[in-house]
């Protein structure tokens, strides 16, 4: 395995300072992405900065009732946190639908936001990949692209964003707090992950910054949520298509709906047009199918993944149907 220098940071400011101007430095939290990819020689940090001693491990309820999640809260602790279960069951459901117990125990909230794609060409240093090596081409476009994106791709890259947690964050709405050399700033989670466009190697809106917290938008009330994930095996597998749905009901009319997709897009995929279509409609299958069609209207299949479009459609309809059922129970 490639060698690197190692340092441990004892404050957020020092962690950021250590990385400043050293793009080959990498922060390590859980390490589940970083060390996997260092072993494959895909990530090649010259220096690894351990941030696990930083005080970013709590979930707090703010004065305005929103939940603020420290970047180092593990995926397991987040999924089982009583306030998350109470306010944002979608987040818990999505996290527990992903990875394994061991990985969830290691992986952190900030790390999950930073996780890299599972595209096999990205993970193979001998393959052409514009994300790993800008300008080298994309072996997935005309290769084995069954797992790849039908939304948000470009000529340069069709790699899927792999996170389940981020699908829930996209649906819920969240603000990331980033600490950089010039202080702190906030960014909407929707703006954090970039579309690949002509620069697939630039995945995040980050500038020498460290994610320190994720603050969730307030929940809808009454709330129904569902996370439906379709994959090749029932556990410990990445999504072929997933849908996270949240909605509130007034009698049987939809008040507000939120919908985000995973497994089909190059970034966590919020479906604003489908949400707008659902508002005020009766909560029934016809409305959910219409919303699914709108959500997938721009989907463009590659040579091996046309099946993802009907699969995603079914996941959306089921997620909305199940969320409506839960909202009805919450109303009752």
């Amino acid at each position, binding site marked *: 395995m490639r*060698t690197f220098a*190692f*340092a441990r940071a004892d404050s957020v400011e020092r962690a950021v300072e250590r990385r400043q101007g050293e793009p080959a430095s990498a922060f390590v939290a859980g390490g589940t992405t970083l060390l996997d990819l260092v072993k494959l020689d895909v990530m090649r940090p010259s220096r*690894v900065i351990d941030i696990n001693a930083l005080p970013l491990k709590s979930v707090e309820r703010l004065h305005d009732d929103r939940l603020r999640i420290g970047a180092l809260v593990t995926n397991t602790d987040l999924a089982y946190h009583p306030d998350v279960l109470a306010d944002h069951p979608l987040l818990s459901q999505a996290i*527990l639908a992903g990875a394994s117990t061991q990985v969830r125990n290691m992986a952190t909230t900030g790390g999950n936001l930073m996780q890299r794609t599972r595209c096999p060409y990205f993970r193979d240093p001998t393959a052409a990949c514009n994300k790993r090596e800008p300008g080298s081409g994309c072996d997935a476009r005309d290769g084995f692209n069954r797992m790849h994106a039908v939304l948000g791709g470009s000529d340069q890259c069709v790699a899927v964003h792999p996170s389940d947690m981020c699908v829930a964050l996209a649906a819920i709405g969240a603000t990331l707090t980033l600490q950089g050399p010039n202080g702190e700033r906030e960014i909407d989670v929707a703006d954090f992950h970039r579309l690949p466009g002509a620069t697939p190697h630039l995945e995040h809106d980050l500038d020498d910054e460290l994610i320190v917290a994720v603050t969730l938008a307030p929940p809808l009330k009454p709330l129904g949520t569902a996370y439906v994930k379709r994959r090749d095996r029932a556990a410990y597998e990445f999504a072929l298509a997933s849908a996270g749905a949240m909605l509130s009901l007034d009698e049987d009319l939809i008040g507000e709906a939120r919908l985000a997709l995973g497994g089909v897009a190059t970034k966590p995929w919020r479906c604003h047009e489908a949400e707008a279509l659902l508002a005020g409609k009766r909560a029934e299958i016809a409305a959910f199918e219409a919303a699914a069609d709108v959500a997938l209207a721009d989907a463009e299949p590659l040579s091996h993944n046309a099946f993802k479009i009907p699969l995603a459609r079914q996941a959306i309809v089921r997620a909305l149907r199940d969320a409506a059922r839960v909202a009805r129970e919450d109303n009752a």
Partner: protein
Amino acid sequence: MQETPEHPPEATVSVHLRLNGIPVTIEVSPNAILLDVLREQLGLTGTKKGCDHGQCGACTVHLDGRAINACLRLAVMCEGQAITTIEGLANEGLAAGDALHPVQQAFLDHDAFQCGYCSPGQIMSAVALLEDRRVAGDIGTVREAMSGNLCRCGAYQNILAAIQDARLRLHGQEGGDDA
């Protein structure tokens, strides 16, 4: 924890652990992986190397009581932490003893293995699962919670039976079968 000066790639770093109940100091490179240190440097070969990428669970150990993949952890990141390996589940120290944890006994009683290569990881995951009361005891939840441990022999049914039997022995309650 004290902030340390940066260790260059060729440095040797002292790391203080509580390993299977006893304090241990190890000297490791910055890029040394916990799994390799346990097996090659400390002679604790009960923890197995399977995929080496966090996909098979053969390397599962407990880090401060939580099941983790030792193949995805830098040894230097474990400063001050408690690590339990299969050797230390029922015995203290760095040598395997004769005592068996109730989960180990349940694996024997239920013939929950064939070749045995995945068993240490399966058992470490099972013990952590049974100790984590946030995880429900029904078969469906247990299957998901154990999905990070692969068994190429396919001993899953007996592994599940062993876990649910050990649950009764440890907690005296039925897990339920609503898969």
